[in-house]
């Protein structure tokens, strides 16, 4: 079983690279050659990835959420899977390479450094923790995808303003679609982050008697949550439109990443398990 898991650990980045190359080639060249087959490649990659996650969970007797490199592979899957669903629902196929490269990045880091942990802290075996982590990860995937669409929006916005009608102009969907995709991803991300925060608040006193609400990780997460709630409310009530909403979404993502990085690697927090 160990060798099978090791094989998948090596295979997954390769599959993501191949999928990324096909999506990138299709974006650059256009035409109909890979229009449908690229989706099949992504599906196969995600299928292998789900087998990998399932096998690890069974073999090591805990979900792969106990250290940062396990979380990275779940995050890669979550980003890839969210994009796959988004592509299926909207049938917008021109933005794939920009999202898949993120999944590829997380998977490469994970595959390089992941360890086969059998022994984990008892606190990490809780079901509530599982839901908390999964919803937080999908939430982060949502805001990551939202930021990518936001970034694409800004690039296309700038190109149109500067009369640059090149590859970006020809391949990307309209600004309105990019804005919608960014907003919907942010909203889904926000809802799941809210669930993660609520579960975290319920689970926290049970798991860590010496917890503190002044923990940098909690403050960071709450700040991100406040930021997204302001942006979403303003958009819903029609006060903010277009570029402003997009900039806010990107700002939210940057703060979320900074908050996670700083609290995980620099600050001392009960929230770090590795």
């Amino acid at each position, binding site marked *: 079983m160990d060798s099978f898991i090791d094989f998948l650990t090596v295979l997954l980045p390769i599959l993501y690279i191949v999928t990324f190359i096909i999506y990138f080639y299709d974006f650059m060249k256009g035409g109909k050659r890979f229009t449908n087959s690229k989706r099949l490649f992504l599906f196969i990659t995600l299928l292998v990835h789900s087998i990998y996650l399932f096998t690890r969970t069974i073999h090591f007797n805990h979900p792969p959420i106990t250290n940062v490199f396990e979380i990275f592979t779940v995050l890669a899957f979550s980003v890839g899977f969210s994009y796959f669903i988004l592509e299926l629902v909207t049938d917008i196929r021109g933005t794939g390479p920009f999202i898949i490269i993120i999944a590829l990045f997380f998977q490469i880091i994970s595959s390089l450094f992941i360890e086969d942990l059998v022994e984990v802290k008892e606190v990490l075996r809780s079901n509530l923790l599982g839901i908390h982590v999964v919803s937080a990860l999908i939430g982060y995937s949502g805001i990551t995808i939202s930021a990518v669409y936001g970034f694409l929006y800004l690039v296309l916005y700038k190109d*149109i303003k500067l009369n640059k009608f090149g590859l970006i102009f020809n391949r990307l969907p309209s600004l309105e679609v990019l804005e919608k995709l960014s907003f919907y991803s942010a909203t889904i991300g926000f809802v799941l982050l809210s669930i993660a925060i609520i579960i975290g608040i319920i689970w926290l006193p049970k798991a860590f008697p010496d917890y503190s609400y002044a923990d940098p990780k909690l403050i960071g997460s709450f700040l991100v949550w406040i930021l997204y709630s302001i942006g979403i409310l303003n958009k819903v009530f029609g006060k903010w439109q277009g570029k402003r909403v997009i900039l806010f979404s990107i700002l939210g993502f940057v703060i979320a990443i900074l908050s996670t990085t700083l609290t995980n690697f620099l600050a001392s927090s009960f929230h770090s398990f590795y």
Partner: protein
Amino acid sequence: MNLLAISISHHTAPVELREALYLTNDEIKEVIEGSKGKLFSEGLVISTCNRTEIYGIPVDPKINYQDVQNFILIKKPVPQIHQDNFRNFFSKGAVKHLFRLISGIDSMLIGDNQIYHQVKDSFQFAEVNQFTGFLMRRLFDAAVKTGKRAISETEISEGAVTVSYAAVQLIEKIFSSLNKKSALVIGAGETGEIAAKHLLDRGIGKLAITNRTVERAEKLAESLSKGFLTEKAKIIPFTTFKEYIHEYDIILSATSSENFILTKDDIQSAMKKRSKNAMVLMDIAIPRDIDPEAKKIDNVFCNDIDSLNIIVEQNLAKRKEEIPKVEKIVEEELANFFNWFSSLELAPTIKNLRDFFETIRAEEVDKNKNRFSHEDQEKLEIVTKRIINKILHHPTTELKKFSENNKSTDEAIVKVSIIRELFGMDKQNNPAAAGEEKGGNS
């Protein structure tokens, strides 16, 4: 193939001559009536703003291009016209020209698929006026197939190649769907009209027109509502239209005004009123109608003719790159058409027909000969051969008569085609297989 074609187009004649030789439907009808049976047994007349072309199967092999040119110039005299203004095609060249034409690669605007519909309409017109026969119908099918393949298998018709259509393409890069958007067209001239038609064509939700002369705006609104069966476009008085610009997502300006009619301040105040919702300004006027400084406002997209021309040039360059792919399709379909046409020759058909029956006979005899004694097997061979000969005697004699008497090739082609189709001679290279299929079905 005895197909003859003459063409006058942008390749050979200036616009005045093309205009002079343009044929209305009534005139095409006259040309058909005048040429049917005298010049051509069947044919086709295509006349658009860029070309007039006549195709036909001559009733007499002596009829040549000059006769057709003279005939058309008698019907529609154009004194300045010269021999060099015509291109003449014959046989394979004529078919190839028709295939290239319907594929859009002979058009002034490369890949313009309007010609595809115009050729189809012309065929239908010829059909209604009983100018089409067996050959022209088959040629029509092959031409339409070529045109369809060119459009679907290549990018020859992709992208906007006119300024007004490029404006719509650009608008669609900003808004996802036009059916929930509103547009205001400033100026009811020809450019404004074309742009308005494009917007309606793409399903714009609400359309308003403003023009210095209200009557002209009303006339345009009337003509647009007729063509597109939509509710009539709203007319806004030119003197007050600035008060309403915030209500529109798209403003398309095409007036002949010497000065800006919309300033940056006008746009800025409109944006405030519409909560900074995106606004697209398409200035397709020369000189410009909208202050280009408006571009600096957030969520305002302001484009003029120069920027739209960049899109047009890029798309034209892309279309030109697709020409070799279309030429390949034309060659393939040309080969298919002439393969079919050569199969209609009499001598090979008679031979194919006899081979077809002989193979079936031989196979059936072979399968069943063991049921007969050795002596009877010989008789079986003789009797079955005699039956086949008797069955084929009449059709063979009839077909031979066509070649001996030099009768109308049309009639021969029709009969040969029917025979080949009935016995599946074009589908089956192997007559034995066709025989088995027949046996299986019976």
